[in-house]
C-alpha cells in the first residue's frame, strides 16, 4: 500500500517544503471547514511573504487571521474580508495587498486551475471594478470578461473523512471551497477528522479522488462558530 498511502505523521511533515513567498490556496468559508491546524502550523513555521487565496481571511484570533499579526501574508485573494480589525488596519495602511474577487469567480478560477483550463469567460464583474485591466468580449449579445485560472504551490484543505489513499468525503457546508483548492495545489495537504482503510468509502460517494491529494493527516478541530444563531422555537423550548 506504500505507493498510495498519503498519511504523514506530523503537521511539520505535512507542510514540509512550504517556503517564503509561495502561494497557498485554502479551503473554508468564514470559519466553516477551514484547515485550522495547518494554518496554525504555518504560524508556527513563521513562513513569510505568502500569497493566500481563500474566500475569507478568518477573524482576528482564528483561521487565516492568525497569520496577520506577524505579517506572514503579503497578498490575499478573497471575496469577503469584513470580520477582522487587524486585516482592515493592514489593508488601509497598504501593508497588505488585497485582490477582491467575486465568490463564484474565485471558485471557478480554482477549479480551472486544477482542470488545465487557463482562462474562461464570465459575465460576473463585467462593468465593475473587477473588470479593470481584463479583456471584455461579447458572446451572443451579452458582455463577459476573461478570468485567468489560479493555482498554488500548496493547497491546504479540511475534509471530514479520508481513506489512506487520500479519497476525501466532506461534511455538510464545510465542503465549500475545499474540493476546489484540493485540485489546484502543486502539493495538496489535507487534514481530516477520521482516516479509514481504503475500501471503506463507497466509490460512488467520494467527493475528491485521492489523485489530487499528496499528504494526509488526522487532526482535532475546534470548529469555532462565527454566528451562533438559534431558532425562536428553540429558545422557547429551551425555556420550558
Amino acid at each position, binding site marked *: 500500500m506504500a505507493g498510495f498511502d498519503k498519511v504523514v505523521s506530523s503537521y511539520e511533515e505535512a507542510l514540509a517544503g512550504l517556503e517564503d513567498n509561495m502561494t497557498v490556496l485554502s479551503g473554508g*468559508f468564514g470559519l466553516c471547514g477551514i484547515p485550522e491546524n495547518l494554518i496554525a502550523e504555518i504560524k508556527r513555521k513563521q513562513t513569510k511573504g505568502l500569497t493566500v487565496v481563500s474566500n475569507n481571511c478568518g477573524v482576528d484570533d482564528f483561521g487565516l487571521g492568525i497569520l496577520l499579526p506577524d505579517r506572514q501574508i503579503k497578498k490575499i485573494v478573497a*471575496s469577503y474580508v469584513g470580520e477582522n480589525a487587524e486585516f482592515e488596519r493592514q489593508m488601509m495602511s497598504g501593508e497588505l495587498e488585497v485582490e477582491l474577487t467575486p*465568490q463564484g469567480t*474565485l471558485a*471557478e478560477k480554482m477549479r480551472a486551475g486544477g482542470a488545465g483550463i487557463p482562462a474562461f469567460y464570465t459575465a460576473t464583474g463585467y462593468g465593475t471594478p473587477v473588470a479593470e485591466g481584463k479583456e471584455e468580449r461579447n458572446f451572443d449579445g451579452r458582455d463577459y470578461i476573461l478570468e485567468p485560472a489560479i493555482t498554488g504551490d500548496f493547497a491546504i484543505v479540511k475534509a471530514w473523512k479520508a481513506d489512506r489513499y487520500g479519497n476525501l468525503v466532506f*461534511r455538510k*457546508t464545510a*465542503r465549500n471551497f475545499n474540493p476546489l483548492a484540493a485540485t489546484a495545489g502543486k502539493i495538496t495537504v489535507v487534514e481530516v477528522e477520521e482516516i479509514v482503510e481504503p475500501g471503506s468509502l463507497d466509490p460512488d460517494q467520494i467527493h475528491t479522488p485521492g489523485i489530487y491529494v499528496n499528504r494526509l493527516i488526522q487532526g482535532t478541530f475546534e470548529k469555532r462558530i462565527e454566528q451562533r444563531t*438559534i431558532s425562536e422555537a428553540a429558545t422557547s423550548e429551551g425555556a420550558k
Partner: protein
Amino acid sequence: MALSREQLAQRVAQELQDGYYVNLGIGIPTLVANYVPEGMEVMLQSENGLLGMGAFPTENEIDADLINAGKQTVTMATGASVFDSAESFAMIRGGHVDLTVLGAFEVDVNGNIASYMIPGKLIKGMGGAMDLVAGADNIIVTMTHASKKGESKLLANCSLPLTGKGCIKKVLTDLAFIEIKDGKFHLIERAPGVSVEEIIKLTDGELVVPASVPEMKF
C-alpha cells in the same frame, strides 16, 4: 407610511411562486423566508453550497459544519442537497435560480447596481453578490428609497463602484415598487399612505408615473 422591514419582506414574498428556487441576501431579504404564502413551497439556495436551507437550529441541533452564506448556523430542509462552491455558482451563474433578492446602496435607470463598496469607508468585498446579479434573470433589489439625509438612492447614474451593470429590473423600496426598463424607472405601486409626489421628490433618476398608481396590498 414607509414600509417596515417586515412589510418589505412581505411584499417581496408576493412575487414568489410555488416551486421557486430562491436566493435571499443578508438583511431584509432573509426575512422573506418568514412570509412564504400558505400552501406554497420554495427552496432556499445559500451560495456557500446548500440548496434547501431550513430554519435556524435549536441548541441541540447546532452544527458548526452547517451554516448559510451569512455564516449563521442553519438546518437543512427536507430534500436539501449540499455541494461545493464551484457547483453552487454554476447554479447561480447558469441562471438556474428562479428569484434572487438582495440589498443595495444605489440603483440607476440603466439597471446598474452598487452594493458592495464605499471607497475609503467600507471595503469588505462583494462576496457572491456580483455572481448573483450577473447570473439571475429575476432579481428584486430591496432598499430604502433615500438615505436618512433624504438623498435618493434611485439615480440617473450610480455614484459608487458597481456590483453589476444593466442587470436590475425590479426595485422594492420602503416607498415604492419600481420597474426599470428603456433607461427609466417606472412606478408600479406605492406604499400604503405614501403619495406619488413624495416618491417623485425622492427619486433622482427619470421616473415614469402612470395616471393611477395602486397602493401595495398586504
